[in-house]
Structures are given as structure tokens and as C-alpha cells.
């Protein structure tokens, strides 16, 4: 196993009376491709908010490449190589596709070394994602699927080492979901980034990643190889809500 790039240690996020994330431990090592699944309301996106510095955890620590960044603002996390996408694509609609990607390059990506040629320029990033032709189009005019890609492109612009992808395949057709999964694999294989991927399209995710963590009601209930987790009783219960004997896998 390579260097641990991102570690959440007993992270808890509480909103008033609601505990969204409850004492979650998660480690991401270099070169890993990890999936996070769990029923709605399991706290997956909130965990991402904590991992990227958007929300400060109520308790616990976030360690990025050995440095404790708990409670620091999001731009510090970005400067240390943590990039993320949001569930609903948040592109800068009035700017061109190219300018959107350049934004990350100009800020967090500025002082970071490009770990791969593909992260060196906005052109290269757009080409990698297949958006090269649309460079001058206003981001607001893209189709939802393309906006998702641009979301990823913006994140890549920060020249990250870790990419947190939040439901990038939601609402896509099956073919598009497959294409997304293979893109994510390429991001890890070709660009050398470590990826954490939240997804509801569980089957596609399970086929793509090596390791899966399962969240339920804010707690991590499983963390291991995809095949094992699929058979884990607690996981099956979480999804189906009742005990199922020897079920083949979550729905």
C-alpha cells in the first residue's frame, strides 16, 4: 500500500440535534480507487463536505498527507491536493468551458505540480475528458451529462492527488454510466490520482472499484473488497431494511 493521502479519523458531523456523520474512519492510500455507497441519508455527501473542508467536523480529525487540516477552510484542502465535485454540477455558467477549467488551474492548481501531462493545461484536461471541441461554449449551455464532465474538469484543474466524486453518474443512461465508470478508472490508471466515488448506481461502482465503504445512518458499517462487502449481512439489511438470508447482493 502506498502513502496514505487522506485520512478521516473518527469524524463526526453534527447539525444541531442531527448526527449526519458518526465517528467515521476512512483512509485513502495512493493509487486507490474506493467507492462509498449507502442508502439515502447515510451521510455520504456530508462526509465529502468534511473531507474537502467545506464543513468543519464537530469531532475527529482530517489528515491530508500527514498534515492535520481539521477545521481549515476548503481552499486549504484544495491547496493540499484534495479536489471534489458536487452532486448537482456547480459550473460557472456564465464562463466558457475553458475558463471553468482554468479557474482551478489559476488558483489551487497554481502552486501545485502537475503530476501528469494531462493536468498541465486546460486544453489537456478538456481533451482527456472529451470536451475539447466545446472549449469556447458557455458552461450554462451544456447538457447535464457534459456539465458533469466539466465538473470533473474543474476539479482536475486544481492538479489534485485525490479526487472526490459525488454521484457523477446520477441520472445518466446505462451507457453513460459505463462511460463514466471507465473514465474514473482512467483518472486513476492514467493520471495517477486516487479516487473516492459516491454512487447510487451501485452495480457499476462495484464493478469498477477495488474497495468499498458502506455508510448507514452516519456510521461506516463495512469497508473492504467489493465482493465481500456485497455479501455482508449488515450491508444487505441497511439497503433492504430487514434480514435476508444469504442474499446475492444489495439491490
Amino acid at each position, binding site marked *: 500500500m502506498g502513502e496514505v493521502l487522506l485520512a478521516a479519523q473518527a469524524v463526526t458531523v453534527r447539525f444541531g440535534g442531527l448526527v449526519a456523520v458518526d465517528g467515521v474512519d476512512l483512509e485513502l492510500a495512493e493509487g486507490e480507487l474506493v467507492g462509498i455507497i449507502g442508502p439515502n441519508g447515510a451521510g455520504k455527501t456530508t462526509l465529502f463536505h468534511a473531507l474537502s473542508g467545506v464543513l468543519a467536523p464537530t469531532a475527529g480529525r482530517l489528515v491530508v498527507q500527514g498534515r492535520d487540516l481539521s477545521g481549515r*477552510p476548503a481552499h486549504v484542502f484544495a491547496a493540499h491536493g484534495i479536489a471534489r465535485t458536487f452532486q448537482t454540477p456547480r459550473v460557472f455558467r456564465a464562463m466558457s468551458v475553458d475558463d471553468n477549467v482554468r479557474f482551478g488551474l489559476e488558483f489551487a492548481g497554481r502552486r501545485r505540480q502537475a503530476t501528469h501531462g494531462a493536468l498541465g493545461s486546460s486544453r489537456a484536461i478538456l481533451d482527456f475528458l472529451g470536451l475539447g471541441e466545446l472549449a469556447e461554449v458557455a458552461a*450554462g449551455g451544456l447538457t447535464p451529462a457534459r456539465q458533469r464532465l466539466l465538473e470533473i474538469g474543474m476539479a482536475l484543474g486544481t492538479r489534485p492527488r485525490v479526487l472526490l466524486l459525488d454521484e457523477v453518474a446520477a441520472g445518466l443512461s446505462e451507457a453513460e454510466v459505463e462511460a463514466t465508470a471507465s473514465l474514473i478508472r482512467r483518472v486513476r490508471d492514467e493520471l495517477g490520482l486516487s479516487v473516492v466515488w459516491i454512487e447510487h448506481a451501485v452495480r457499476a461502482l462495484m464493478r469498477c472499484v477495488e474497495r468499498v465503504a458502506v455508510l448507514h445512518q452516519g456510521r461506516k458499517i463495512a469497508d473492504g473488497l467489493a465482493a465481500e462487502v456485497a455479501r455482508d449481512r449488515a450491508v444487505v439489511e441497511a439497503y433492504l431494511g430487514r434480514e435476508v438470508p444469504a442474499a446475492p447482493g444489495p439491490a
Partner: protein
Amino acid sequence: MSRRAPLALVLGAGAVLAPMPWLLSDFLLSLALSCLMYAGLAASWAMFSGATNYLSLATAAFFGLGAYVTAWGVAALPWPAVVAGGGLVAAAFAALVGAAILRVRGAYFAVLTFGLGELVRHAVTYGEKRYAGTVGRVLATAPSPATVYLTVLLIAVAAVGVAVLVRGSRFGRALAGIGADEERAETLGVDTRRVKVAGFALSAFFAGALGAGVAVRWTYIDPPAVFNPFIGFQTVLIAMVGGAGTVGGPVASAVVFSLFTEFLRLRFPYAYLIVLGVLLIALVLYLPGGIASLWERPGRRRAEAPSAEAAGG
């Protein structure tokens, strides 16, 4: 985006306007001064508030602070120092207050900046009474009208020029990113706290410098005169009419509006404010397209599917 052409235009305009004190009558010169003042105020307001969507209604506070720096210092200090001092005091105040109030969302921020005018006015009134034993101040020493005009011209040119430069710079893009989607911009590496405070302070600098420069038009000033909310109101109205997302718009609109306001004020001393108020409302309600550059930015919680519209500039 090439900045050379707009900058050349600004400097050129400055050169053209420079000889006015020797060409225009006193009344027209005074009018020109108002136009320049509002051009500077509106351009620097738009530079920050237009880009970030943090609507500042604090222009009166900064302007007034600058005016008071003049009141305190004009007898003792050289003129350039007074004007620069006005700008710096306003900027420092903005940085200090901004560090606290820029943490809140837009609507709260706007109301709080609105209250700043009151707050500063009370503080200055109190301070003057307690430590200087006076209510208002007489400005006995004042530079010649030509000097005042040229000073204001210089500051206005600087304000507009800086606005142009910022717009095409990395800092300006950070401001625009904050206006488009602040949280997103932060995850892409923008130190939003610092950028906002810096932008706010920069904008305040010009408001303060203009206040310092223009204050000598009055021979006697007291807090209600210089901390007048109308200045903030007019600035916002001008910027909105002209298009707060641009630089040229507020400048052009400043000229039109200064003239329009002068005309109205001579005729209807209080009612003209009502007219302007109605104008602002009508503008916001029926010409949102005219101010599209300010408002048609993506909100943070947009759940609706993106439309196929080509986005405006």
C-alpha cells in the same frame, strides 16, 4: 481580454477632461465634479459588489470618513496626503469591519453595511463632541477649485482604471468566482475570506479618497452632511442602471444620472428622491435584463435543470 484599449480610453478621457477648470463656468465645473465623483464611486462599487454580489450600502460611511480626514487634516497636512489619508482610513475601516461582516450571506451583509453609515456617523459625532468639543467643522483652508477638480479627476480615473485592471486580473476572476458560486470557488482554491476583504477595502479606498477630495466644496461640514445615505443610494442606482457587471456602464450612467439628478433637485428638493426611488424599483422589477450581468449568476442551491440558454456576459 485586452485591457489596453479600455485603459487607453480612460486615460484619454482623463486628458481631455483635464483642462476643464479653465474652460467651464463655476456651475458647470461643479456639475462636472459631481459626474466624476459618481463615476469613480460607481466604478469602484461595481468592481466589488457587482462582481461578488455582496451588495454594499456602506459607500456613505467610507465617503464620510474620507471627508472627515480632510476636515481634520487639511489645515495641517499637504493636500495629497489628506486625500490619500482619506482613502487609507476608509480602506482600513472596511478591512476591519469586513473581516467580520463578510462572513454572512448577501442579504444580511447589505443591511449591515447600510447600518454602518449610521454607526460611523454616531461614532464621529460622539468623538467630535467628546474629544474636540465641537459639532461641525469649518474648512478654512482649501485648495483652489481647479486643484480640487483635478484631484477628483485623478481619483476617478484611477478608480475606473483600477476597476478595468481588476476585471482582467486573477483577483478579478476570484471576485467573479465568488459572485458566481462562492463555495465552489473556495473548493477550487480561492481564499474567499481574504479576497472579499481585499475587494471591499479597495472599493472603500476610492470612496474615501473621493470623499476627502470633494469635502472642500463645503466650507462647513458636520456628520449628517457627509454621512448622507443618498450618496450610497445614488451610487447603487447608477451602477445598477449602467450594468454593475461592467466598467463602462456605471461610468456612462454616472454622467447621465448626475446631470439628471441636478436638474431634478433644483426643481423638487425632496421629491426628487422619490422619483429616483421609483426609478430604482422600476428598474429592478422590469429591466432585470438590463442588469442581467449582476443577477443571472447561478445560485448555490440551484436544483432546476440547466437551460440551453447562452449565458450573458
